[in-house]
């Protein structure tokens, strides 16, 4: 896979915009705009830290990037990747801050929440909308046909997955996709692709999981150690 020069990455410290300093600025701006257009306001309101992969970029570049981000409702964090704040260690404090974010967002807020290596998308993804994330993706809503979820880790959809999902997109064959209603148009795990059967099939009655077994994608009812979960 070709390396993407402009990518949003979720990290333990929040959303990070990774850019390739070898690019020329005009091309970079074009790519950033394309990314943000694809996301259609998805990242709006988020604070982003710029990651130049260690390269030194001219300050004008950073200004240009900041202007584009602000145009799309994002803000650029002043903090440089090198000067990370010490992380909170107390488990209680961590949980409290996570709860606070949820409270501030409210159930109708579409702003994604990044915690550790997982992004929480608190809305339905409609046709044409896409989430790609270096980590796990949890969607609290439906994933409609024509929309895409890409994750290098696992994908959990607390709703109907009718669109396209690609778990383990960087090659992780251990990745899985779980959904309350798993009826995707196409499912990809690592480098394997499977599609919905052409003949009409029954809608599953409970949550299911898709994973790789001996090189092919299998779908099974979602079970826990206490047995099958019925919804």
């Amino acid at each position, binding site marked *: 896979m070709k390396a993407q020069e402009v990518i949003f990455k979720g990290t333990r410290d929040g959303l990070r915009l990774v850019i390739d300093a070898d690019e020329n600025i005009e091309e970079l701006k074009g790519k950033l705009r394309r990314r943000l257009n694809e996301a*259609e*306001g*998805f990242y709006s309101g988020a604070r982003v830290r710029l990651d130049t992969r260690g390269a030194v970029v001219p300050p004008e570049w950073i200004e240009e990037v900041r202007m584009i981000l602000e145009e799309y409702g994002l803000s650029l964090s002043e903090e440089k990747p090198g000067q990370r704040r010490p992380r909170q260690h107390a488990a209680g404090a961590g949980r409290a801050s996570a709860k606070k974010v949820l409270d501030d967002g409210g159930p109708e807020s*579409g702003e994604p929440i990044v915690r550790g290596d997982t992004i929480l998308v608190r809305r*339905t993804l*409609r*046709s*044409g909308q896409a989430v790609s994330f270096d980590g796990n993706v949890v969607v609290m809503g439906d994933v409609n*046909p024509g929309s895409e979820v890409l994750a290098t880790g696992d994908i959990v959809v607390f709703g109907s997955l009718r669109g396209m999902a690609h778990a383990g997109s960087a090659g992780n064959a251990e990745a899985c996709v779980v959904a309350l209603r798993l009826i995707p148009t196409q499912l990809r795990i690592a480098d394997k692709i499977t599609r919905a059967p052409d003949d009409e099939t029954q809608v599953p009655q409970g949550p299911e999981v898709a994973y790789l077994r001996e090189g092919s994608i299998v779908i099974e009812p979602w079970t826990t150690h206490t047995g099958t979960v019925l919804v």
Partner: protein
Amino acid sequence: MSGTAIVVTSGKGGVGKTTAAANIGAGLAMSGPTVALVDADIGLRNLDLVLGLENRIVYDLVNVVEGGCDVQKALIRHKHIENLSLLPAAQSRDKTAVTPEQMKALTLGLKESFDFVILDCPAGIEQGFKNAIAGADRAIVVTTPEMSAVRDADRIIGMLEAEEVKNPWLIVNRIRPDMVKRHDMMNVDDLIDFLKVELLGVVPDDESIIISTNRGIPAVMDEKSRAGRAFLDIASRIMGNDVPIAATLEPDDWFSRFAKWLGISRG
């Protein structure tokens, strides 16, 4: 006092946006409030035809936006419905003739003098769409019970949300109750379950729409038109009235079939 701007949109073409815009505008105006219909489909104008006002166009939306004439001068009053005015689109220009900022200013200006501003949006998701929704407070998404139209409606709802036009209403147009009953057509409940938006109304497939469109008289003015009655109900719901939605629309018992055979229409 400022009015409400509502954009009528769909994504897919040919689902009945213009007909819906004309009939909702006419339906609202007939019940009292003042209504301005704006044809935002620059280059492919139709709304004037549906309203039977084509031969009265002197100035158009592009003239107004470019400062060539005052908006009051470009507005055409409907010949039968006193409270209804039309701002026609330019036919010899295209979507790039105006910007979203200009449309926003125009809509804001119209809201000063009208209770409702109804914007007829072009098909597609490009600049014409962005222009039409720029000044809208609310949106009505029109779809037909076909997968392709529903898919496009889903895309449009996503784009409206991204542009901060929240909580769109849905109109399901051209429902054929007999086909729904035979499970040959999607039913409205499935559609709402999929799109998860508020249903504003269901309009039956009705030949009288084609006739009224060709004659330039909105179907809401024809008491016998079933589609016209559905649009009147929709207008009433926009006004905040609680009008129940008859999902199947047509009673299909032996009595109504008998009545239909006799040529009696039940109001």
